[in-house]
């Protein structure tokens, strides 16, 4: 059988290299689109042949790499990673279409970085070996760093460096955790391995509770900075505000932090020395992010910064849902990642259009844009409603699952989150009202609506938001299968 998964990682990377060497904008964008469409086809092929009813890994490929250190090249997908791979494969081609006609001094590098990012992110989702996982994890930093520092706003250098150093240091803490896990398991079994499943199983029989807790916290730190949750989110507003729109979408697709929670944290959580403490830490962080993100978003003047904090708020649901430790809350958290990726991509694209066509993204300086930009207004209404959690759209499915099921174990936190939900509705509606509706602000002059390329890409993703909102099963089924498997470990640990 074809190594589909490896191809899915390699195709974007190879096309990224080809795109770097193209000479004209025309060549660059066509090559990039070709690469991303091939990835999409591969991802759809995998999705078609994916069995959602079993929790085990599929499309597994294993080959030796550095046997003396126990490093292998092994990739595979399950219900945790498949939807995220699909999300990346779907959004990237439309991102390229969205950026089709943008002014750009270095189109070859721009599109090349997008594809490089895609390859690296899919690599993280597919990796079954900690070494490989970490390699891809770090590779995702490079395209984003250059994206922000080259195509970013006025304060780009600061934002890029801050993002880079902040998340890099967090990854290094995670690396320490990986080393500790690796060596403790090595001394236990007598043979080295970096295999994720193997190490997570070994973790269960580690003896010292302190070592287990230290490993857990080190790994958790790497993930929650990447997600990010309050109070480790401070790189995000700067990076998101300064980044170009394509960079924003890439940031949004960078779901590796949340993925780490499901793949690595939850399976070992019940076996830590103090599971209840760990659950509380996660629940507090998640709840605080939801509420804090919502309040700060409410007070933002800059549209993009508002969405950045909305993102912090949304990702809080991922952490809270994981901490809920009920199969449906965990699948809700997984679905939130998927849904957030779709919704926020379109929200950022919308702000990008407003920025270029109206010349500003300060919310108070806009007003009545729907009169001049009816197409944009329609799409924005859909995604904003989805983002605030209107039933029938993806955001609702995710947040409903997280809140109702987390209530079983974490009732107090869920009640606290309710405040956040009210605020969430408020800032979304208020921002829409001030920018899109009401009296048209004549100072803006004659504002154009979406181009065809922009409408196409934004409309398709918005339709997916509606489709998965009405019928989440195509991805939710596999998430439930896997979250049931994860939660079943709880009874093994007797927590």
């Amino acid at each position: 059988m074809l190594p589909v998964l490896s191809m899915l990682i390699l195709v974007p990377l190879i096309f990224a290299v080809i795109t770097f060497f193209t000479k004209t904008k025309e060549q660059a964008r066509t090559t990039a689109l070709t690469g991303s469409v091939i990835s999409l086809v591969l991802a759809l092929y995998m999705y078609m042949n994916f069995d959602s009813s079993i929790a085990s890994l599929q499309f597994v490929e294993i080959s030796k790499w550095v046997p003396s250190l126990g490093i292998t090249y092994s990739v595979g997908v399950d219900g945790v990673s498949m939807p995220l791979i699909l999300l990346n494969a779907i959004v990237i081609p439309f991102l390229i279409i969205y950026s089709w006609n943008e002014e750009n001094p270095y189109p070859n590098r721009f599109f090349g970085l997008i594809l490089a990012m895609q390859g690296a992110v899919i690599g993280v989702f597919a990796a079954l070996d900690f070494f490989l996982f970490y390699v891809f994890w770090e590779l995702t930093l490079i395209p984003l760093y250059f994206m922000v520092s080259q195509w970013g706003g006025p304060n780009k250098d600061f934002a890029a460096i801050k993002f880079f150093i902040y998340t890099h240091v967090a990854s290094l803490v995670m690396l320490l955790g990986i080393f500790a896990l690796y060596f403790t398991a090595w001394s236990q079994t007598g043979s080295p391995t970096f295999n994720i499943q193997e190490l997570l199983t070994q973790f269960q029989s580690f003896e010292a509770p302190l070592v287990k807790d230290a490993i857990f916290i080190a790994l958790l730190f790497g993930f929650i900075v990447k997600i990010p949750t309050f109070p480790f989110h401070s790189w995000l507003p700067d990076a998101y505000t300064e980044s170009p729109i394509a960079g924003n979408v890439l940031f949004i697709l960078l779901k590796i932090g949340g993925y780490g929670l499901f793949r690595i944290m939850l399976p070992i959580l019940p076996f830590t020395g103090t599971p209840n403490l760990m659950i509380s830490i996660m629940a507090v962080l998640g709840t605080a992010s939801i509420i804090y993100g919502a309040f700060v978003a409410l007070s933002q003047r800059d549209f993009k910064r508002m969405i950045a904090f909305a993102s912090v708020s949304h990702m809080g649901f991922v952490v809270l849902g994981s901490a809920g430790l009920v199969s449906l809350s965990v699948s809700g958290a997984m679905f939130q990642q998927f849904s957030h990726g779709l919704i926020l991509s379109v929200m950022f694209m919308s702000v990008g259009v407003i920025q270029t066509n109206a010349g500003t993204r300060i919310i108070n300086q806009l007003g009545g844009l729907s009169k001049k930009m009816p197409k944009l207004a329609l799409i924005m209404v859909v995604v904003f409603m989805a983002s605030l959690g209107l039933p029938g759209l993806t955001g609702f499915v995710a947040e409903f699952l997280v809140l109702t099921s987390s209530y079983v174990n974490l009732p107090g936190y869920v009640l606290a989150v309710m405040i956040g939900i009210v605020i969430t509705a408020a800032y979304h509606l208020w921002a829409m009202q001030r920018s899109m509706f009401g009296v048209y602000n004549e100072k803006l002059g004659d504002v154009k609506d979406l181009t065809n390329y922009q409408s196409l890409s934004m409309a398709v993703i918005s339709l997916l938001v509606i489709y998965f909102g009405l019928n989440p099963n195509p991805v939710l089924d596999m998430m439930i299968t896997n979250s049931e498997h994860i939660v079943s470990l709880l009874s093994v640990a007797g927590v």
Partner: protein
Amino acid sequence: MNGITLFAPELTVVATALVVLLIGLFLNTESKKVLGYLASAGLFASLVLTLMNLDANAVMYSGTLTVDALSQFFKIVFLIVALLVSVASIKYTENNEHVEEYFTLVLLAVVGMMMVASSNDLLVLFISFELASISTYALAGFERRNLKSLESAMKYFIIGALSSALMLFGISFVYGLAGTTNIPEIAQNSAMLVSSPLGIVSIVLLVAGFGFKIALVPFHMWAPDTYEGSPSVVSSLLAAGSKKMGFVAAFKVFMIALVALKTELTMAFAILSVITMTLGNVIALSQNSVKRMLAYSSVAQAGYISMAFVVMSPMAITGGLFYILSHGFMKAGAFLVTAVVGYMILSENREAENVDHLENFKGLAKRMPISAFSMMIFVFALAGIPLTAGYMSKFVLFSSTIEAGLVWLAVIAILNSAISLYYYARVVKYMYFYPAEGERVSEPLPYALTLIAAVVGVLILGFWPEPFIQWAMEAANVLIAT
């Protein structure tokens, strides 16, 4: 009888050196180019001969010399670096009337390094050390009309002489206490060393002596000036070759001969390596001369490698050795790029000064794509970006500190590695994202070849490290077993 075959690599290099010197007398300046090819061929032959005897294991000449996995490992590192430097020098020495002296000195320096790797006796070690040192003093001042080069040579010479004196002094104490200069015999008589306070004195002196060559803080002051002022090809030899000679000497003396004083050593090296890596990285942040930046980065890398002396586990030494091998490619390559850039700037303007200033790297991707790409790979490798040699070596070395329970050391090393990314990424930014200020220049063939060879080395070590890690493990076993 075995001796001659096993020492064929060294003898080949010596013979080449003499032949180059002799032939040079009879050639006019134009045709001296052939000497570079001859020297490179000699080094290549020596490399092949070393590779043929990879599994050799012998002690010879009244126990003064040894050939084992460790010595072969280092010899190959030295020969690879020397080969890269010598091929690149073909272009550098073009139209120079002193070509034969240049290549003879390079070859003799390499012989010195190789003999250090094989020495089994402190006196042989010292003499070989001096052979390599004296040759490189002269090489550092090879551009005798360039004040900076002369200054660097002078500084290097004075400090080098001081360090040799300290080292000899330390050796004399060891001899006085142990009654022998033979390394394994010292290890057997270690009781004398441990019981006497002079044992500590000898360690301090030896650490200082080797520390100068390795450029450990606080013995590093000469390195930035010398690396900056010397011709770039020579800096490459110094940073990638001569520094490793300090390491192999330190490995032999500290891990075999003085292993009884392990506890004292561990603490001393822990402090030295932490200070060295931190100071090197912090000062490198503010450098605008690329060579100076590389010099400080080289100081920092010496700090990382010294962690092997702190942990002293098989994994740590494997990591240290693997790091030394990777560093040979990365550092030699990076300095060679500065040589190419210097060539580019000087070919436009004979009188240009500070040719290695960061400004001159602006838009290098447009002007010299091969050099820019190679430089990107080298600095990313030095920074430890995944899938390069630098990442693999940091991975093994840093993880070994966790294995030994020295989490604080790993944390410091990892934070240092994060800091270093900043100044490495800055070079890439200058090369790729600033507009070019000049015409496209095509790299001369010798430079292009060496750069590509070094890039291939860095990538192979990064992508497929297995055989090299195995090999480093075998070399590490030589140190552990005794």
